[in-house]
């Protein structure tokens, strides 16, 4: 199978959906003439023209709100945030307008809209440009929240997100836009709300999403070298959560470790621990482990940025703690 980088997988997803449905359009800062801050929309302006690939001024609340209004009138916007750090300017529109319009109107509104862009830390971007807001958005009923890792999952899930009739928040990562992986030429989609077992094992479930899948794969390799059989659960979607895949994995391995880039307090990983413990307490041989970012805004210096983020060393330490008494 051919291998393509994530930025191309995303571009293919958007382009195919725009060809399929004339009501789909893309807007955001630099998406047109500049081809996207991370080149995810390369060539799309030439292909679809300025009516459907729209460069906006720097006004996240304004263009997110405009997109929601357009969706209210029957269009299907894709909003690109240069990164999700800037989505805070629009968070009122996303949470207080998009997520709530359907309920407040007693089901009158249907809002097919995708908010996508890079989330999480990259190399030394410092505190304001390294936010991981997965938990913020996953907290909100009315939104669907997707955070895939591989090129294949990115493409299939973005296509589903664009076809979905609900507001969807779709997280990518600055660090992985160039990462290549197999993506078939043929059309496919991946259902929203379906986790995937990325590696089968029997001793411990390593639960993760987004680019931390790649960190988790390294952790799993190291554990395997020590004779442990780790299973990797890639959630891919945070809301709705695929409880069935999550719980059946943990029920099989009896041990669970969540690896997330969020801070621990009030985080998605803490919620996962609650779900596991409240639903299958009897299956657990150890408390659910959780590796998170440390409780500090992201510092700039390399030596400490590395410490704040979940590292392979911290993950292994937590994994061994969760594995206590194993064998």
């Amino acid at each position, binding site marked *: 199978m051919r291998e393509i980088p994530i930025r191309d997988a995303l571009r293919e997803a958007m382009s195919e959906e725009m060809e399929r449905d004339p009501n789909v*359009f893309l807007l955001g800062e630099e998406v047109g003439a500049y081809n996207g801050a991370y080149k995810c929309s390369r060539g799309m302006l030439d292909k679809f023209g300025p*009516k459907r690939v729209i460069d*906006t*001024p720097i*006004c996240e*609340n*304004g*263009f*997110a*709100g*405009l*997109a*929601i*209004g*357009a*969706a*209210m*009138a*029957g*269009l299907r916007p894709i909003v690109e945030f240069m990164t999700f750090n800037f989505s805070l*300017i629009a968070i*009122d*529109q996303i949470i*207080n*307008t998009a997520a709530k*319009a*359907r*309920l*407040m*109107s*007693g*089901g*009158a*509104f*249907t809002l097919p809209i995708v908010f996508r862009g890079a989330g999480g830390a990259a190399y030394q971007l410092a505190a304001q440009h390294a936010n991981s807001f997965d938990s913020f958005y996953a907290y909100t*009923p*009315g939104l*669907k929240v997707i955070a895939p890792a591989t090129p294949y999952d990115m493409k299939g899930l973005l296509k589903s997100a664009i076809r*979905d*009739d*609900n507001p969807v928040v779709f997280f990518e990562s600055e660090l992985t836009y160039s990462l290549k992986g197999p993506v078939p030429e043929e059309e496919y989609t991946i259902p929203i709300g379906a986790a995937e077992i990325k590696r089968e094992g029997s001793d411990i479930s390593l639960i993760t999403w987004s680019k931390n899948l790649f960190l988790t794969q390294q952790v799993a390799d190291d554990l395997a070298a020590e004779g442990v059989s780790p299973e990797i659960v890639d959630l891919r979607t945070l809301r709705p959560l695929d409880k069935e895949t999550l719980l059946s994995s943990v029920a099989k391995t009896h041990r669970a470790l969540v690896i997330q880039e969020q801070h621990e307090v009030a985080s998605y990983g803490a919620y996962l621990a609650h779900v596991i413990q409240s639903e299958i307490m009897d299956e657990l041989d150890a408390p659910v482990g959780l590796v998170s970012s440390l409780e500090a805004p992201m510092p700039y210096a390399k030596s400490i940025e590395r410490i704040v983020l979940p590292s392979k060393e911290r993950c292994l330490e937590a994994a061994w703690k969760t594995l206590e008494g194993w064998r």
Partner: protein
Amino acid sequence: MDQDLVADLYRQMLRIRRFEEEAARLYTERKIGGFLHLYIGEEAVAVGTASVLEERDYVITAYRCHGHYLARGGSARHGMAELLGKETGCSRGRGGSMHFYDLEHNFMGGWGIVGAHVPLAAGLAFAQNYKETDSVVVCFLGDGAINIGPFHEGLTLAALWKLPVVYVIENNFFAMGTPLQKTAPTEDLSIRALGYPMARDSVDGHDVFAVRSTMHTAIRRAREKRLPTLVEAKTYRYRGHSMADPAKYRTKEELEEWKKRDPILTLGEKMISLGMKETKEKIDQEIETEIADAVEFAESSPMPDPSTATDYVYV
């Protein structure tokens, strides 16, 4: 003067007034919960505007939304039921006073965050250009909304992309208890349009005919030239900000001055001087009947079933 038009404007304004008075009564009887922001005094703005719109046009507003909903043709029954939190409400009891919707009449709400609906209006207008319709959008907002970011972001996009939208600042001189002088260094709020730039106008919002003519021009600019306008309509709310507010921050005299020019009172007097006394009395009676029926309908409607608490979150 076109007597049918006069009668219709009178009917529409009175319908809102009586709806709101009944809502106030039901609130004091504790049948309505939450915030209740009444539109009493400002009726000429919504009615004058609605009278020059086509059915295919869109209206969107903030939380003081009952008047715009009714002026757009929303049913009094379903509006009153919404206030009482009933399943038969225009938002099935999920929205309440601040969140009326009636998509059949292109009435798009009913929004509670000051200024946040300004970009939504730009988006509705954007969609009209995208779909190549000739519909236009009217967005009502308060004088308290002109300092917040989304107001400026929405107007920026409307002017930049030449969107067919008319923004109407309903300047009632107060944002809750804060008088306008404390937040805006000008008497004419429409000058905010200059920087985007877009066309602007200012109108006496207590004069329904003046509102009609100003809005007629602005709406034509939107429909034919696909250009936005910022209109200021000077008006006054007779009640407090919400039912919880006794409005002690203003003088009785100021209120009485505005009431002397009350749009419904003055149009009623005009009808009599035009020899339309009988028509007026008939309308008065019909509105009484409609509003009484709405209250009866609302009171006898069922509340949402407990099993539906999480319905209407996702498609």
